[in-house]
């Protein structure tokens, strides 16, 4: 007991927390954006060192077991830190332009930067904590911070979106608390009351002794709770509004990271439940919700006029696909699911970066009024085009790799699901590509951007996705395999 918290963890969680505090004060200064980047970069550094350590000497529990890092969450930690950093990079010019347009005040900038860091902190806490209760608390905190971010513009639409986001996720999360309590209730039998009872590692150790009925009910509550945040149909209604109305960097981190984090929480709970129940109860639920999300989201796509809204729905679709993969389970499917998580967050955030600049240039998010990007800002246009092609699962981009594994496994194990997937993917392709193509190609009258757009993030992400589609380093693969084994 009483082991001092390790340096990596300290930096990892400390840096965003400190950043939040500092930027709460100086968030409106000219150098605030640079500060923001710096803090995120430092977090990334800590995450990297943590990764190195985990890869070197296996899972690690920290600060008398309050923190637990294994290969499953360490890669999410790394991903989160990375995307957070690139997004910070992107938000530098983006928010500057927003400010020039007078859409954000000084107070707004302060709020933005502060909340951005705190949001990062909350997500990292969800990922690293070993305690299901703390996980819940952190998830709620993440909700609050993002609610503030979504409402940043204080416009009619943004307020409405934020309100819905708050109420729906708040209620959802409340169900998750109910689930947590039930888990605790079940755990008491096995572990006895006490602070250690909700520690995931302990639960994992005794999961086969947990009471199945309680666990199944608990899982239902947890699924409703965290599923709301993942954006599973029919709990998804907050998602498109929140994505479309917040500042674009926020949309990027929302669909790039927050959904992943929520799904991570869900997966942790699934592991316990599967251990306790003999029948594949959790898996069936996950597959069902996953398929429903894929199908419904695909149908929504063709209806969209607002570009960010459309990509929000595409996020729902991909989350559904990942959930379906985890539901199928098995080494291949889980591997594919994790891979798809990574690819999706990289690609989708890259797309949002491009979309952000595109809509800034056109001065609107309405797709019919964005035309001929490739003529004025070729780089933005290409970013959007390639990103779209990638997210639609076109090789050689990495998204295809995971979709390949998921689909082929699906037809082998659950043939009944494949027609739905085939149709949904086809419709999704038709809808998204049919809308993006005229935006990128063709002629336009728009002007260039006042500030040079932030392209490093976009093309870094796309390059990563491309490389991972063609070649995956050995240790990365092992890492995924280990994580997949944990999920089972």
């Amino acid at each position, binding site marked *: 007991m009483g082991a001092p918290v390790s340096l990596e963890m300290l930096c990892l969680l400390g840096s965003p927390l400190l950043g939040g505090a500092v930027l709460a004060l100086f968030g409106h200064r000219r150098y605030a954006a640079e500060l923001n980047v710096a803090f995120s970069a430092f977090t990334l550094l800590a995450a990297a060192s943590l990764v190195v350590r985990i890869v070197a000497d296996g899972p690690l529990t920290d600060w008398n077991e309050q923190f637990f890092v294994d290969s499953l969450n360490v890669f999410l930690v790394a991903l989160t830190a990375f995307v957070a950093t690139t997004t910070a990079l992107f938000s530098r010019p983006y928010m500057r332009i927003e400010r020039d347009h007078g859409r954000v005040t000084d107070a707004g900038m302060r709020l933005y930067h502060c909340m951005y860091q705190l949001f990062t902190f909350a997500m990292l806490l969800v990922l690293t904590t070993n305690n299901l209760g703390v996980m819940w608390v952190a998830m709620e905190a993440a909700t609050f911070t993002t609610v503030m971010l979504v409402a940043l513009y204080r416009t009619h639409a943004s307020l409405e979106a934020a*309100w*819905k986001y708050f*109420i*729906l996720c708040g*209620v*959802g999360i409340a*169900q998750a608390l109910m689930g947590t309590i039930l888990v605790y209730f079940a755990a008491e039998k096995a572990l006895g009351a006490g602070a250690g009872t909700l520690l995931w590692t302990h639960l994992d150790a005794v999961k086969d002794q947990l009471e199945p009925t309680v666990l*199944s*009910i608990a899982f*239902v509550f947890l*699924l*409703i709770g965290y599923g*709301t945040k993942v954006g599973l*149909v*029919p709990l998804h*209604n*907050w998602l*498109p509004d929140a994505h479309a109305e917040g500042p674009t960097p926020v949309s990027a981190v929302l669909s790039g990271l927050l959904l992943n984090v929520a799904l991570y929480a869900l997966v942790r709970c699934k592991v316990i439940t599967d251990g306790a129940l003999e029948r594949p*109860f959790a898996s069936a*639920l996950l597959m069902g919700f996953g398929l429903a999300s894929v199908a*419904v989201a695909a*149908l*929504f796509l*063709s*209806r969209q006029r607002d570009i960010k809204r459309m990509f929000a729905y595409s996020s729902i679709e991909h989350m559904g696909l990942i959930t379906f993969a985890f539901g199928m389970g098995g080494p*291949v499917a889980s591997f594919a699911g994790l891979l798809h998580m990574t690819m999706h967050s990289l690609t989708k955030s890259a797309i949002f970066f491009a979309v952000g600049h595109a809509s800034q240039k056109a001065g609107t998010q309405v797709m019919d009024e964005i035309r001929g990007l*490739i003529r004025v800002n070729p780089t933005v246009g290409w970013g959007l085009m390639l990103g779209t*092609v990638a997210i639609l699962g*076109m*090789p*050689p981009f990495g998204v*295809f*790799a995971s979709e*390949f*594994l998921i*689909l*082929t*496994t699906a*037809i*082998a*194990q659950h043939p009944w699901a*494949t027609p739905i997937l*085939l149709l949904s*993917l*086809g*419709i999704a*392709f*038709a809808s998204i*590509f*049919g809308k993006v*193509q005229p935006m990128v*190609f*063709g*002629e336009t009258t728009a002007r260039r951007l006042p500030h040079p757009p932030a392209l490093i993030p976009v093309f870094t992400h796309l390059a990563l996705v491309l490389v991972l*589609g*063609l*070649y*995956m380093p*050995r240790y990365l*693969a092992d890492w995924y395999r280990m994580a997949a084994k944990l999920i089972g």
Partner: protein
Amino acid sequence: MTPFAEPLQDVLAIACAWLALGVLGIARPASAAWSTRVLYPAGAIAGLLLAATALAAIFGQPQSLVLPLGLPDLPFHLRLDALSAFFLLLLGATAAGISLFGCGYFRHDQGSAPGLVCLYYHVFLASMALVMVADDAYAFMVAWETMALSSYFLVTSNHAHAEIRRAGYLYLLIAHIGAIAILLCFGALQGGSGNYTFDAMREAHLAGPWGTVAFLLALAGFGAKAGLVPMHVWLPEAHPAAPSPVSALMSGVMLKTAIYGLLRVTLDLIGFQLWWWGVVALALGLGTALYGIVFAAVQSDMKRLLAWSSIENIGLIFAGFGLTLLFRGFDMRALAALALTATLFHCLNHALYKSLLFLCTGAVMHATSERSLGRLGGLIHRMPWVAWCALVGTIAIAGLPPSNGFASEWLLLQAFLFTPGLPQGYLNMLVPVAAAVVALTAALAGYVMVKFYGVVFLGQPREAKLAEAHDAGLWERTGLVWLAAACVLLGLAPATVIGLLDPVTRVLAGDGIASLAKGWLFLAPIQPARASYSPLLVFAVGAVLVALVWLMVRAFYHGRWRRALPWACGFPQTNARMQDTAEGFGQPVRQVFEPFFRIRTEAPAPGDAHPRYRETHEDHLWYGLYLPVARGVGWFTGLVTVLQRGRISVYLLYSFATLLVLLLFVR
């Protein structure tokens, strides 16, 4: 390393070289000279090397290679066997000619920067080469979709025009859906083993239903790529939209990659064949062939006409493929080999003459900036090189002896004539009908090509500006002549080609027919008494006869001749507009096959001072199949929007209901 010792590595090297050329292209994107004077010639040389390597590899042992790329559990497997080698030969030989032509062609601005076009073009070539050698599902799919993507960017390279964007969209959409079907087909083939290498699929002993599922998925997927009716709608849009060398590459080679994939899956990966698969493919193929050629007959845009004729040829190829399956299903190996030979031979021929003709249209477009047949004519005087090369292509595609087109159609018909041997009553009835359709299609092809050639190159120029038309440049001529020569040679020495095909058929159909060919001179598929054909002899005797006639005429009579106004039954001032237009020429076919078309006519009013008559022929399938599907989906999406009506209480109700349902579901 000695040349051709390691053909697979050579192929890989060539593919990489193409990729490198593409990358070099964007090094100087704006400079047309850089890409056309340096990169395209290099690409052409690479093509020649590829052809040579493949030629050597056809008779070699299968080779395989594993690259350290791809998925962690599934590195890229490559394999080069006779089938791959044959299609690589096709690719290399055709690409060489097209690249040569491209050297001269791409000088003009195609909308996108020359460097970018160069990138797409060479990535396209490389990906096609990789498709041929891929030996696991993942590598295949990656190469396959890269091919689709690069060709999409080529099609939309001139993306300022809305209809070109529409064409590209339609193309990529259908290609992608097809790709998903192929992917699922592989999923079915691996039979739950979780191992996606082709070797594993060969080993996996599928249950009957799974085999059928795989075959149908493959037929759908590869059919979508090949332009099989009813999945053909993208083809007449996309091929004309692309720059002509690209159209040539797509029509000539890319469609064949689909055939390759289909052969690979059905005859190689699936362990068994059911005879009724063959019937399905045969029926689809014949339908496609007739549909395609009938629509080709009424086109008034020369590239669309060629595109539709590609659909026809694909139909014939599928018919041959279906016949192969049929024979294979009844385990009549020799006949299966015959049908397969015809199929593959036709693939090769179509690749050559269709690219030749597309390149000719490209030359015409550069010279006249006109695509519509109604504004061309008389170009044989202004651009003799193009005209005579086009004549070769025309004869070949019309399937007239002694051209290569005739040789393959001859084999195909021979294969049909053997079907009465099938141990199945109804199938025997199929023979006459099927053979009749093939014959009708071939005859119609003649009609269409006379229309094409006559309207474009013969007669009087229909526009004044055609007088300024210039002949193709040196590079372009080289490309054209290369392809034309290939057509002639293949036509004259079919026995040699069959010799090339022998290893392929031995692998796929379990037997070959080359051994039965009566020497190099004669083409005798099963036994000489039954049927034999010697184009060389025909050509030689024909040439001698023509020469004799000419000599005798010259010997006995004077050679006087003079120029005058055309006679035209003595009608005064007949002018160029009085010639048959393309529409006029197609009118009889339109009348005979009226039910095929969805015709809209704009007839002038009786007292019209400037009467205009327009008639459009559209595809029933587009209105009868695609639009309804689109509308259905639209309606469905409208239904779904009920989920998102904005009222927060309702949203809460959703999650509440879900919660309750699940809780009951737990109990």
